[in-house]
């Protein structure tokens, strides 16, 4: 390997620009933070730690809009994952993370390691992961590359979660051309713990050990940009790879070992953190910063899989299945024995020091000696310029698109075959959704529901996002993302507790994209306040572009809700013939960004109109009240494809049908996507109580029947459809497209 550049050469040749560190930042680091020129390793560490991915320097000002506290929040953003009180001394822990770029490049490993990473965030908090969710957005299935990406992504998520023995119980999969060159793969994990076991990513106590546990370090995932640098010039390029390979078997052992240590020997442990983006440097520097400590690490002690790794490579490697511990002095061997039992490496690689210096040694030399806080806290926040995209201003002037639907039956058939609406069971059946035997409602419903063993409680969870609405109106679209998640949680009979998010956008240096980010976060934040669902964790993924074309702004909301009585979970499909059918929430002419618009016009356009957020919230509260009192037989929220699709879905996999009087709706309105609506069925003897709870918000529209037939009278036409036929269309659409030969 060639000699690394000298500090002076770095100053002159500016390799840091390739690592996305700006000249201003470099100068600030040299002049103000260090008072000298950083050496090669130091410059690399700054570049990584000051990247948007680690520092949120661009998005931070926007993220401050989110509420992140209420009575139940025990831990908000800042740690591995957020923690929420669910009574009885227990807590639910959750977070979501994006793995968009790795998944686009190598779908199987990208998705798998995305799952692996988010699981470590959960168990580093001391919680046992009990469920996973995903949110996937691909290009259209008529493209063979997309089909391969879909297949690889789904297998990757499945193989990792299945091997770990953590059920994947809910998620979403949508298709739109804007994701063709840049797939979105967001993974969410939910953990359960006793509040007394909560851990922090903290390193403190002079003389305490910094221990490295888990897999060996290789040159995985080191920032692509650095590959071009002089440092690697004599390596055979074709043998180099940035792809991280997941080893779920090792992660399972790591999980068990860490949880054993945390629950049985809390006195040995000071802090614990997973090694995620920017590997050892970010975990160790963040732990030291949290503990207001200094740290001295000897990189020669880091278990390595490859030979000749530089300090820079060791520090920035993103090899998977590794954790960093701070262990009380004298207990190093005790800790090592626990990991030994699981056949895992556990090695002391350094100590906590007095003062605040971050010192790294490699090959007998000090390769880094800088203040801890310079890496973690002194990052220059970046102001961004923003302005409203021209397309939105233009759209506001244009006449509203109003479809005319003469044959709603034909329209419904076609909508059910749209890939975003069609049955996703061919994907989620590749996920073990039942392991741990606590899944009360698995994938295929509005929200996944787990029971909490030994209690009467349950947890409901969902991931939702719809980039189309956000693209047309970021602020209202952001509100809708939250409302859709809340609607899914409430549909299952749970009370929304809090959310995590993944904010997926294009290049934030584009003022229009930054505006989208800002406006949509503003919308989400307003909705979070009204629903009292604080944001307890999350992740920002910017630069989702392909050939200069950005994805739709796609904030994903991952919401968890509390079921007070697990015996009162509400199914999403109809129950008994004779039950009364209600439509909850008012229907307007909302077609901008709808599946109907995309299907009929091949694109989306127009203005997504604001809606009454307070009103929707109030309705949901009343609905939940009725559910908790046992007055609701089934409930399904309306989303893509509106009422028409929702009605069909409530009948699938049952033997029932419906007879409906919808004469106050037109054929087109059957497919309007006004947010905050539900189809609810109620047993006849619960009708008075239900109507009392819901008041005007619920409108009686018909009856559940024993004929497997969907019959409805609309203002301008009639529907008369075999449910079996509809179900077949819905079930076959995706498997059929996945097998397509062109």
């Amino acid at each position, binding site marked *: 390997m060639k000699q690394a550049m000298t500090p002076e050469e770095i100053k002159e040749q500016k390799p840091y620009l390739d690592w996305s560190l700006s000249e201003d930042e470099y100068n600030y680091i040299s002049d103000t933070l260090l008072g000298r020129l950083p050496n090669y390793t130091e410059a690399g560490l700054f570049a990584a730690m000051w990247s948007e991915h680690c520092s949120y320097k661009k998005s931070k000002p926007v993220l401050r809009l989110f509420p992140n506290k209420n009575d139940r929040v025990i831990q908000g953003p800042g740690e591995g994952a957020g923690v929420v009180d669910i009574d009885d001394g227990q807590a639910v822990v959750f977070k979501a993370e994006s793995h968009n770029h790795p998944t686009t490049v190598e779908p199987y490993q990208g998705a798998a390691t995305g799952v692996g990473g988010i699981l470590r965030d959960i168990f580093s908090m001391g919680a046992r992961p009990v469920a996973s969710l995903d949110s996937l957005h691909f290009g259209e299935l008529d493209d063979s590359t997309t089909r391969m990406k879909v297949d690889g992504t789904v*297998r990757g998520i499945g193989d990792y979660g*299945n091997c770990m*023995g953590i059920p994947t119980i809910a998620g979403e999969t949508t298709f739109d051309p804007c994701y063709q060159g840049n797939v979105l793969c967001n993974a969410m994990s939910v953990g359960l713990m006793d509040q007394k076991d909560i851990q922090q990513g903290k390193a403190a106590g002079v003389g305490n050990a910094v221990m490295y546990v888990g897999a060996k370090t290789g040159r995985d995932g080191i920032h692509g940009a650095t590959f071009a640098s002089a440092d690697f010039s004599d390596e055979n390029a074709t043998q180099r790879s940035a792809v991280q390979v997941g*080893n779920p078997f090792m992660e399972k052992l790591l999980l068990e070992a860490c949880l054993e240590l945390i629950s049985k020997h809390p006195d040995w442990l000071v802090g614990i953190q997973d090694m995620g983006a920017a590997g050892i440097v970010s975990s160790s520097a963040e732990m030291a910063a949290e503990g207001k400590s200094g740290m001295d690490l000897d990189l020669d002690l880091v278990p390595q899989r490859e030979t000749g790794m530089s300090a820079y490579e060791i520090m920035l490697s993103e090899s998977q299945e590794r954790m960093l511990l701070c262990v009380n002095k004298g207990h190093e061997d005790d800790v090592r024995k626990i990991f030994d039992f699981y*056949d895992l490496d556990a090695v002391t690689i350094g100590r906590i020091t007095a003062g605040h210096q971050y010192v790294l040694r490699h090959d007998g030399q000090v390769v880094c000696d800088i203040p801890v806080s310079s890496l973690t806290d002194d990052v220059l926040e970046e102001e961004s310029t923003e302005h409203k995209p021209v397309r939105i201003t233009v759209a506001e002037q244009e006449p509203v698109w109003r479809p005319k639907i003469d044959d709603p039956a034909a329209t419904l058939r076609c909508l059910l075959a749209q890939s975003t609406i069609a049955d996703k069971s061919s994907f989620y*059946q590749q996920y073990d959704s039942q392991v741990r035997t606590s899944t*009360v409602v698995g994938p295929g419903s509005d929200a996944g529901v787990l029971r909490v063993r030994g209690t009467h409680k349950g947890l409901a969870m969902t991931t939702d996002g719809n980039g189309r609405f956000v693209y047309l109106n970021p602020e209202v679209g952001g509100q809708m993302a939250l409302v859709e998640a809340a609607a899914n949680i409430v549909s299952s009979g749970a009370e929304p507790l809090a959310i995590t998010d993944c904010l997926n956008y294009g290049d934030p240096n584009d003022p229009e994209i930054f505006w989208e980010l800002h406006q949509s976060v503003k919308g989400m934040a307003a909705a979070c306040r009204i629903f009292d669902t604080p944001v307890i964790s999350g992740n920002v993924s910017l630069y989702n572009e392909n050939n200069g074309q950005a994805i739709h702004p796609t904030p994903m909301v991952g919401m968890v809700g509390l079921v007070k009585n697990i015996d009162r979970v509400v199914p999403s499909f109809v129950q008994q013939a004779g039950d009364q059918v209600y439509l909850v929430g008012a229907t307007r002419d909302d077609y901008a960004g709808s599946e109907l618009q995309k299907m009929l016009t091949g694109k989306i356009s127009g203005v997504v109109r604001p809606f009454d957020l307070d009103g929707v919230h109030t309705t949901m509260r009343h609905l939940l009240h009725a559910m908790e009192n046992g007055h609701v037989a089934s409930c399904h929220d309306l989303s893509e494809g509106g009422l028409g699709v929702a009605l069909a879905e409530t009948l699938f996999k049952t033997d029932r049908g419906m007879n409906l009087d919808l004469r106050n709706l037109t054929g087109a309105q059957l497919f309007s996507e006004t947010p905050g609506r539900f189809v609810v069925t109620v047993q006849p003897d619960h009708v008075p109580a239900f109507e009392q709870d819901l008041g005007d918000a619920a409108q009686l529209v018909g009856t559940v029947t024993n004929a497997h037939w969907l019959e409805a009278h609309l203002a301008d036409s009639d529907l008369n459809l075999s449910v079996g036929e509809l179900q077949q269309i819905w079930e076959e659409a995706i498997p059929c497209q996945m097998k397509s030969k062109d």
Partner: protein
Amino acid sequence: MRIAVIVFPGSNCDVDLYEALGTVCGADVAYVSHHEHSLVGFDAVMLPGGFSYGDYLRAGAIARFTNIMPAIIKMAEEGKPVFGTCNGFQILTEAGLLPGALKRNDSQRFVCKAVPLEVVNNQTLFTSRYRPHERISLPIAHADGSFYADQKTLDRLEANHQVVFRYAEENPNGSLRNIAGITNQRGNVLGMMPHPERAVEAILGNTDGLRLFKSLLTNGSVKVGE
């Protein structure tokens, strides 16, 4: 009757078996690590589902070299009940306690869903509480569940009534003769791909697996003779 649930590195349905036996059936059950050498004091042993050693190489191939394996083989030879579900079944075939092998599913994909099964033989320690040829439904969740054995072995399995469960409608993985579960010749070792331990509580939507554990518990510490 005291039952051991073995924990291999990568087992992950160990908890589910333990809860089904202990919490739901009230049985006397304990986890036993693969590091252990002995099963003295236990009347039956169960091998859980999951991914021992990540299913690397072949599902179940590496687990059979763990310390505990000779003790499991000894119990099988003594005629005590030995039960393996999913990965447990794969380990039992790899260890030679059951004939045949489990190949990758024909679809090449992991599959998790409930499947209809026929109880082909209800005259075993594990199935006495089912009716002859009863139709039940149990969840499957595996990528390597396609049972394979040569013709002669298959014929012998059928002739000896060692086929205990068969897929009753579609065959989800390509198993020969729709085989979902078999015993050894003596009848005290049962391996099956479906997960009865996932179907023991109404809240989870299925209780068809409960009678398997109840059968075993009522048949008690019976040893099966030659």
